[in-house]
Every structure is written in C-alpha cells, then in structure tokens.
C-alpha cells in the first residue's frame, strides 16, 4: 500500500475492536454472486518506476513547435508566483468550504475572484466557477430560459464550435431549441438575420449569444446585438475571452445580461483540455438564476469580517431536483489561479498582455500576407484571425513537419462553409516571438512554393 499507514498489527487491533475475524467479514454484505475476485491491472509501481514512466509519457508529447494555435485556449506567460501559491497544500488539499470557520482562506479567495471578474466584466454577480467556457456558455443559455420562461436560444455561428455543440447537448436534453445565426462575409454575425429571428412571434427568443472576440478572432457589434435582443425581451449573453477585457468594452458596458467564457488564459496551462475555468457573470437581477456557488461577505459573532457560501437554496444539495443546476464540484483551484494571476498582473499588466498579443498578431498578419496568406475577413480583430491558404489541411501538415503548428484548419469546424474551406485560424499572444513568426512565414513560403 503506497500511502496507507496500516501495518498488520494495526489491522488486527481494529478487527478486534470491531469484533470480526477478518476484513472479508466486512464485505459479506456484498452478495456472493456479485462479489469480485479482484481486478486485473498492472502491478503496483514504486515511485521511482512511476516517475520514469510518466517522464517518458510526457516526453512523447511535442510541445516544442512554434505554435500559432489558439481557438479558445491560449499560450500566455504564467507568472511563477501563480503556481508557487497553488502548490500550498492548504489550497489544493482542502474541500468545498462547508465549515466557514476553518475555511476563510478559500472563501475569501473565491470572493476576491468574484470581485476581480466583476471588475473585468462589469457585471456584478459572478459564480465561483464552472467546468469550462463551453459549459458556462450552456449554463448561461439555460439561465436565459429560466429568466424569460421562453425556450429558444440563438447562438452565432461565429462561436467556438465546441461551445455550440455543448450548448446544444445541454439544451436538447431539456427539450429546448438552439438556433444558429449566420455570419456576414466580413466574419461577424449577421445582425439582420438576428433581427428577423427575434421577430418571429411563434418562437419567442430567451437568449442571444455572441462572442467577443468571436471564433474568428473578430470584434462583433455587441452593443447593437444586445439592443436588438433586449428590444425583443430576450437576454443577451456575451461569450468573452478574459484577457481581451483589459482593452475591450466590457459586457457591462455593451449591455450584456450575462458573460460566459473560458478563464484558461488567466494563468492556467493548456494541459490538453483542462482543468480550466468556466467564467459566468450576470447582472444583479439574475442573482437567483445563476448556477454554482456564490460567496458572500458577512460578520462573525464577534463582529469580525468573514466570508461564507450564500444563496445556497439554488444548489443541488439543498434544492435537489429543483436546483438551478446539478453542479457541485467546480474549478475552485483554477479560480484561485486566475485570482493570483489577475492580482499579479493588475490592470496595466493585463493590458500589456492584451496589447502585446495584438501587436504580435499584426506582425504575424503582415508576415503571412507577404508570403501569400492574406487575411480572410475584413472586420477588426484583436490577436487571432483567419488566413487563406490553398489546400489548408495539406499546408497545415507540411508546416508541422517544419516545426510549426500553423493554427487550426477551419474546415474542421466549418465543414460546410465554402468560404472557410481553405483557411487557417492563427493567433499570437505576448509570448509569440519575432523569431517564431519568421519561422512560420519561412515555412509557409516553402510549403506554398
């Protein structure tokens, strides 16, 4: 037993106190017919063997390419202080703060997280975290349904493919409808189509979901979309990328009711898909609709300021089948990472990250255009954009061989959109170097030649 403390003597003493002869006796409540004789797994490994195995597995991944892949998950500088704080056992080996008297660390940290995300999004009610950006988007859609009593949600096609898929999965199970809004040739959502969809009296719309930046990295006319949604009695959901909020108009400013998004860029490594951080924020009037934990400020018997989980009647352990969501375990440690990250960067540091990415992306755009891969869309972008290359999948594969991960082949996400049949979605961030951009451009010139 690698971690258990019990010696045979310990076990004997326990059995004697219990008054049974063997551990087997404690399993006699399992009917003999279904008792297992044991499981067939590889032999136990002492730590030395295990660490060798894991180093080898990790070494089989290739993370040394010049990467321009974003598509919802972004390479960023993570200050060393973030992991230094997270590695304290007081954080990661604690449970949900059900006993507030001995959990003020976690409780205040969540409250700080709520405050920081409120500061970023301009929306006052922030949940303690959701699984990821896709599920928080789906939960946002469900919120609009609960808030309006309507069952149809509109989502822009220029939203991350997975977010649309997951929202569809979540909505379909409750019998709700998710309709997609087309995009214009400039890559932004077709607001005329939105207006038409909202106008259908037979199918009143609960919520409208647009991304900022959208899935092509482009800036959407969010305020206009929000106005249209509100005029039709629908709620407006902004799917955001949190670093961009250092410089872009906040969901609060553009009039969104809800902001959802992926918090991974805030100090969390890519790690092949998670754990990440589902951000969910809403306006005050939705405080009882928001799913997930909320921490509030209060005082103790002696008047000391303290924090506690609150408005718990929305949650599954109290409300059971009438809960706002079934969420229980969330992504608290990732929220902590984001909290440490944001307090380290501050408003100006975060702006440097966003602006640094924008500057690098402009250099990337110029370099790719110069070798024959022009930008596809006309709308303004922040740090991610699509370029045209003939036979994109082949080009992408050929770039890999040259040590360049040339973004996302957009055909994979939009198989039926001819405008995107030969497009690569590429991104740059503050960590993208000029040398990497030159490598990309050089490799692309070769491949396209």
């Amino acid at each position, binding site marked *: 037993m690698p*971690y258990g403390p019990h010696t045979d003597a310990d076990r004997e003493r326990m059995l004697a106190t219990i008054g049974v002869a063997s551990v087997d006796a404690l399993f006699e409540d399992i009917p003999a017919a279904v008792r297992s004789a044991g*499981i067939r797994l590889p032999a136990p490994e002492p730590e030395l063997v295990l660490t060798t195995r894991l180093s080898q597995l990790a070494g089989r991944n290739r993370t040394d390419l010049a990467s321009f892949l974003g598509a919802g998950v972004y390479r960023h500088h993570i200050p060393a202080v973030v992991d230094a704080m997270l590695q304290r056992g007081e954080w990661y080996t604690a*449970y949900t703060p059900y006993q507030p008297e001995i959990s003020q660390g976690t409780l205040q940290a969540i409250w700080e997280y709520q405050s920081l995300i409120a500061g970023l999004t301009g929306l006052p009610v922030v949940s303690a975290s959701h699984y990821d950006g896709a599920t928080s988007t789906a939960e946002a859609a469900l919120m609009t349904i609960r808030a309006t009593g309507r069952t149809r949600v509109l989502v822009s096609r220029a939203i991350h493919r997975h977010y649309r898929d997951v929202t569809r999965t979540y909505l379909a199970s409750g019998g709700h409808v998710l309709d997609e809004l087309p995009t214009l040739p400039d890559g932004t959502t077709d607001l005329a189509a939105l207006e038409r969809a909202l106008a259908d009296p037979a199918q009143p719309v609960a919520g409208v979901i647009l991304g900022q930046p959208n899935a092509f990295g482009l800036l959407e006319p969010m305020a206009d979309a929000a106005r249209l949604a509100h005029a039709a009695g629908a709620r407006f959901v902004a799917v955001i990328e949190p670093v961009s909020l250092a410089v872009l108009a906040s969901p609060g400013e553009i009039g969104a009711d809800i902001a959802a998004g992926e918090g991974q860029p805030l100090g969390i490594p890519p790690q092949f898909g998670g754990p990440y951080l589902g951000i969910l924020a809403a306006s005050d009037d939705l405080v009882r609709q928001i799913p997930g934990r909320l921490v509030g400020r209060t005082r103790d018997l002696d008047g000391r300021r303290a924090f506690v989980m609150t408005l718990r009647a929305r949650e599954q352990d109290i409300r059971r089948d009438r809960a706002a969501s079934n969420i229980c375990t969330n992504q608290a440690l990732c929220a902590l990472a984001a909290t440490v990250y944001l307090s380290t960067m501050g408003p100006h540091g975060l702006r440097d990250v966003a602006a640094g990415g924008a500057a690098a992306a402009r250099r990337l755009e110029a370099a790719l255009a110069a070798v024959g891969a022009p930008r596809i869309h006309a709308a303004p972008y922040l740090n991610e954009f699509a370029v045209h290359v003939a036979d994109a999948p082949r080009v992408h594969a050929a770039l890999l061989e040259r040590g360049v991960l040339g973004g996302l082949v957009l055909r994979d996400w939009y198989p039926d959109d001819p405008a995107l049949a030969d497009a690569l979605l590429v991104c740059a961030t503050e960590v993208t170097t000029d040398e990497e951009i030159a490598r990309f451009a050089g490799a692309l010139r070769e491949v396209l030649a």
Partner: protein
Amino acid sequence: MSLEVEQTIAAARVLIPLRDRGEEGSLGARNAVGPVLQPTLAETSTPGRRTDQVPHPPADALDGIPAAHRRAAPPALPELNEPGVVRHFVALSKLNYSVDGGFYPLGSCTMKHNPKVNEWAARLPGFAGLHPLAPDALAQGTLELMWELQGMLAEISGMDAVTLQPAAGAHGELTGILVIRAYHEARGDHDRTEVIVPDSSHGTNPATASMAGYRTVTIPSAPDGGVDLDALKAALSPRTAAVMLTNPSTLGLFERRIVELLDAVHAAGALAYMDGANMNAILGRFQPGAAGFDVMHYNLHKTFSTPHGGGGPGAGPVAVRAHLAPYLPTPLVVREADGRFRLERDGERPGSIGRVRAYQGNAGVLVRAYTYIRAHGGSGLRTVSDDAVLAANYLRARVEGAYEVPYPGPCKHEFVATARLLKEATGVRTLDVAKRLIDHGFHPPTIYFPLIVEECLLIEPTETETLEDLDAFADALIEVAREAREHPELLHEAPVTAPVRRLDEATAARHPELRWRGMTGAETPCPQ
C-alpha cells in the same frame, strides 16, 4: 497552562487589534505566525504598484481596434507588487483546514491523502504545455495515458467503455443520463420520462435528472438503510428511463439486495445507473458492470486521490456496458492497429450524444488519477478499500456508545451517527458538536446529510489516516459528547479557537455582498 496565563494572553490580545485599511478594527487580532484575517485585495491595492511580467508593447499596439470596441477605463483590478501578492495568498491559505494539515473525516467526500508525486506528474511540461487541439501526432504521450486510463477504469468497474470527458461527478451523471436517454431513443422507446432516485441519494442525482429533462421520482429507504424494494418495484413503470443508485449509499451501506434490485429495474425496461462516487469502499470487491449496472460515473477526485482543490477541479469519467458505448460523448481515445493513439473524429460514432464540454477532459486531473492507479495496481486498490472500510468500522465501533449509530453494521467506507438523543438530553445539536470538534483540532464530519437522518453526522475516515489519528478523533468525539452533558455552553460557543467564530449567514443571504464595490476602475491610466 494556567488560567491566569491564558487571561494574560487574552488581555494582551485585546490590546493589539489588526489595522485594516478598509473596515477599521474588524479583522480581529494580530499574530506573528498564526492565522490572521486579511484585508481584501482591493483594500491592499495601491495605484502604481506592480511587478513587470511582460514587455511593454509598442504604443500603437491597439491602433487597429476601433474606439467603439475599446473599454472606457482600465478594468477594476487591484495593483500589487509580487511580495504583496505572496503575503496575501500565503496569509489566506493559513486560514484553511486541509488534508495536508489534518484528519478530514468529511463523509461522502473521501478526503484521503493527495500524493505529492501526482502533483509533480501533472506539472511535467510535456503534459501541462500541450494544446487541446494539438494534432494527434503531437499528443501521443497524453493520448496513451488516457487510453490506458480508459481501460483501467473499465476494468475496475467491470464495464466495457469509458469516457474521460466529464469534469466532475455531477457532470458525469448528466453525461450518463443523456447516454441512457439516447439509448432509449435509439430503440424507439420514447415514453420514458422518469428517473427513480432513492431519498438517500446525493443531491446531484435528482438535480441531474431534472437538468436532463426527466421527472424525478423519489422512493423511500427501508429501515435498514437500503432501498425500499417494494417501493421501488411500485415506482418502476414503462415511464421509467433509469434508476440512479448511489452504492454504497450516502449512509455508507452497500445495497444488499442489489441482485434483486437490478433484476427489477431491467425487467421494467429501465437502465440502472450507479453513482460511483463511493467506489473507495469497494475497489476490487464489487464491479458494478459485472454485477449488472448499465452505467456509472467515477469521482476521480475522491477514489483516486486527485485533490479537491477547495471545491474543484475534479473529473467524473463515465463507464458503460457495451450496449451503451455507441452513445458516449465524443471524442474517445482510440488506439490504431499500428499502436498509435488518436482522438475519435467528428461523426465517427454517429450515435454519440455529442459533446458535454470543450475538448477532451480535465487531462491534468487524469494524469494524477493515472499516477495513483499505477502506484497501486489491482492489489493495492483492493487494499485501499479494505483499509478504508476497516477504518470506518473501527471508528464506528469506537463512537457507538457516545452517539447513536442508526444502521446495523458492517458499514462500508463511511457511517452515519446521530446526536438525536444528545439533543434531547442537552439541547446540543449536531451543528454544535461539529463546531466543538474544531476546537478539538479536527475538521468536522459532514453534517445534516443525508437529509433522511435527523441530526446526523456522516463520518468517512479513508484509508490513509493512522490508527493514532482515528483514535484521537474518536476520543474527541466521545469527549465532546461528555462536554455536551457537563458544559453545554462550550458547544454553543464553539468554535472559539478558529480564526472566526460562527457567522451571520442570515444577513449574508438577505443582503448579498458578493464582490468588492469600492473599485470601479483602475485608479491610474495605463502607462503607454
């Protein structure tokens, strides 16, 4: 220590309140090495403080962004330098109880030791730095690990296929129930609109059923704590899509009539879902798939020691028998004939319920669980459960005199005790017992859960606590019962040694203060 000394201490403390920029005097006493309440980040912020992390971009970096898309003022974030950040989060961490700090017998949560090698493994740059959309060729290490983990979790459950996608237990439940729905739909069985859930089940079970669009039918427990089989049979009907069973139950009991129960469920055309959050009790002793369950989820953050993180993240893989495999969410990890690994491609398994999250799972958590399983092997995992059950039965035997233990033994990994009689005799409630345990140096057990047992304590020691610690906890629990009779005020006042005393939760809920309201934007413009 004499009482006089303690009074000197008290007097001394009263003289040294903590100075807090924001709300003067409200943070209690100063202390050099102990836990001290902290001002918030906002209160700690000073305009102009920072530690440079990234280069300043050129002044024209944002010229391409039209003004209409720009935010009016920098976001309301605090300004600190690195030492300020470190002090803040180190100081906050000291206010937390944790497994690294002590015994954490929180029932239903399996607060076992979190091995340090798991943390090391998850941080290996090859694992941590991998983009989730990286082409398969770049991801062979993690894919192999995931593929192996799928297989190991299938073996442990006695099932045939596993998805690693769900981010937590509840997420796994939703996934499993959607798979069940897809199964019935695919067979043209459209009228199944109900999910049956025992009243002892975890709250996520009925909440999941609702979320998936089902009506929840709750059935009572039998006096022995098991499912009331007659009630179950009565509730089963052609409308039943599934029965969700937490096994061992939230009472810590294995469902003794499991064979009969599964037969009844299947006879009604329904499927049997096992909430496997409590697998720590039965590893190598019971394989749900082999026994006849159709689908189950795991809580890797319980059974397989991935840390709870103060509330998450976790992972809730779902295992199914072969007939449900077509409906699992996409993508699974598959192994090619040539030994290479890849993610399923879009549309490759057309029956799939689709995606339940972006990308393919909380891979960082999966690395930890894989490491844990490999460290144990099959024999080790069986010993895990043996020792967990042994510890629970030992504690149960030790506290049985001082508290009522409503269900007959043996229990599995946890057991329910109740302070009902104590309350009648002394007015002391389970809440008071729990708070007093804090003064005795322990995290309290889960209380008032499951809801069906009055004044209950759900106690789960796990297999990684020493006999000395089990005894110390049992002694404390017994001592608290004695205190309840002799000094009930000690329990009403408790805790008195924690950083804060009991909280005003009512005001918190009545006037929610969910964020710092003082900051509206950074106080200084961003330097160009």
